[in-house]
């Protein structure tokens, strides 16, 4: 276990070498929050409505505040298996005395931890600027939210690894990863609360596991879900993660037999 801890530490320091890049990335992504803040404020105040499907203006803005944080925990752009398999550098991990997949996971966790750490001051800034629109959760809801967000990372990681491991069989998956992550963010409620959707479309979205990545944690933060519902959600998240992991592992194992390490 010690070697993995060292790897985590070294990887973290490696990422810190390009702090400016990370910080700009985070600042740039704050644009989303302020665009949606302006947009929904204009909609609620302009049309004189107080609620959209049980979402007040404050609920909606808090939702975007939370999703802006959850986007930092989205592992999509912190996963590199496709890239390393495609360029052959995955061999470096394979020949070392460690679990190559676990190391890959640690690297993703590294990047996510750094993103969250660097985002904290900016989220504090967002909170200060728009605190009148942001709902504060109860202590227990906050704990539930943290646990759900963490389970969401595992779920998303296992799902995206399926596409990454397809690289062993079908070559570079970069375009597919971009396209699928874009669709998943939408299905997960990354663009707006799923409650805003018409009933029929919403029922489709709610069948899929992606809602656990944005919509569900945000609703937990907002106190819209009870404890029993939350425990059931965690169970579903674990089951979906296990299913995705099995698929990903099977593709990986069969893909490894085809891997030549020559790169492109």
């Amino acid at each position, binding site marked *: 276990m010690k070697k993995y801890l060292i790897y985590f530490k070294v990887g973290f320091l490696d990422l810190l070498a390009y702090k400016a890049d990370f910080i700009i*990335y985070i600042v740039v992504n704050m644009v989303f929050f302020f665009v949606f803040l302006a947009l929904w404020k204009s*909609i609620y105040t302009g*049309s004189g409505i107080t609620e959209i499907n049980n979402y007040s203006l404050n609920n909606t803005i808090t939702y975007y505040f939370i999703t802006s944080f959850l986007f930092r925990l989205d592992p999509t752009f912190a996963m590199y298996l496709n890239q390393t398999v495609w360029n052959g550098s995955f061999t470096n991990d394979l020949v070392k005395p460690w679990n190559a997949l676990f190391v890959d996971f640690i690297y993703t966790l590294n990047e996510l931890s750094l993103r969250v750490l660097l985002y904290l001051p900016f989220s504090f800034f967002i909170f200060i600027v728009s605190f009148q629109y942001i709902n504060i959760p109860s202590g227990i809801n906050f704990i539930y939210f943290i646990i759900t967000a963490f389970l969401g990372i595992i779920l998303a990681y296992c799902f995206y690894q399926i596409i990454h491991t397809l690289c062993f069989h079908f070559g570079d998956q970069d*375009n597919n990863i971009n396209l699928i992550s*874009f669709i998943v963010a939408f299905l997960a409620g990354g663009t707006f609360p799923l409650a*805003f959707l018409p009933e029929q479309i919403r029922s489709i979205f709610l069948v899929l596991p992606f809602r656990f990545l944005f919509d569900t944690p945000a609703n937990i933060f907002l106190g819209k879900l009870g404890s029993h519902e939350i425990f059931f959600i965690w169970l579903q998240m674990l089951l979906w993660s296990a299913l995705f992991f099995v698929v990903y592992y099977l593709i990986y194992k069969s893909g490894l037999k085809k891997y030549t390490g020559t790169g492109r």
Partner: protein
Amino acid sequence: MKKYFLINWIIFKNAYIRDKKVPGAVFAGVMFHLVDIAMIIIFFNIIFSNTSSLAGWNFYQVLFLYAFAKCIVSINSGWIKGGLNDFATELIRRGGFDFFMTKPVNPMILVSMSRPRLYAFIAGIFEVGLCFYAIFAGHINIGLANIFWFIILAILVNMLYYFLQVLTVVPAFWFIKLWSLQDLMSRFNQVMRYPAGVFPPVIRFILMSVFPIIAISFIPAQTLFYPPKIEYIIYIILITLIFGMITNFLWKLGQSRYSSASS
């Protein structure tokens, strides 16, 4: 000027040959744009099921604004984004910019057009289609003068968008590796989708003048739908010229401190 057209033609021809070999990548690129359009239509439907207008603009006007903004982004993405992304992430850091500096053409233009993405132009066709759909479905009456000024402004704002895009990557001369900069414009593209009136006055002022990203989509669209305002037309001409000069100046300044491979 002729040599730039010739270089551009050769680069486009190579891009076509390259893309022909990876139809999957082209398909995924076009799909990405189409999915974005589908999602935004759902999103706008949600918005307009709760309000009849957004800052005074109806559904079809906002849809046109979005489609027009997407057209500008697609043209620039197809033409220059790939080259500028390379510049922000690789060329300065690895010294690849040497190649562009040693050619008897403007390095800024050569870098910009070095990696076209033809699928963005295919996506652009759908976006132009969406523009026409919004106008016809919305029964928007447009005069000839509006069309004339809209075309003039559309050409100018494409240039302005290009200058802004270059401005966002120029810091790479100083900071060496800035991957995040390549994403800066795609984040700012978000604000081009909505009428300027949605934003608070201070932010609107900044996004209309300091970094005039709203002006790029909003002013031409406004000129198409409402009686053309001469002050808006002059304003676009002026800021295009000013940002062109600033971009050129900063690029040359950055270039003078470039010292080949950095890491």
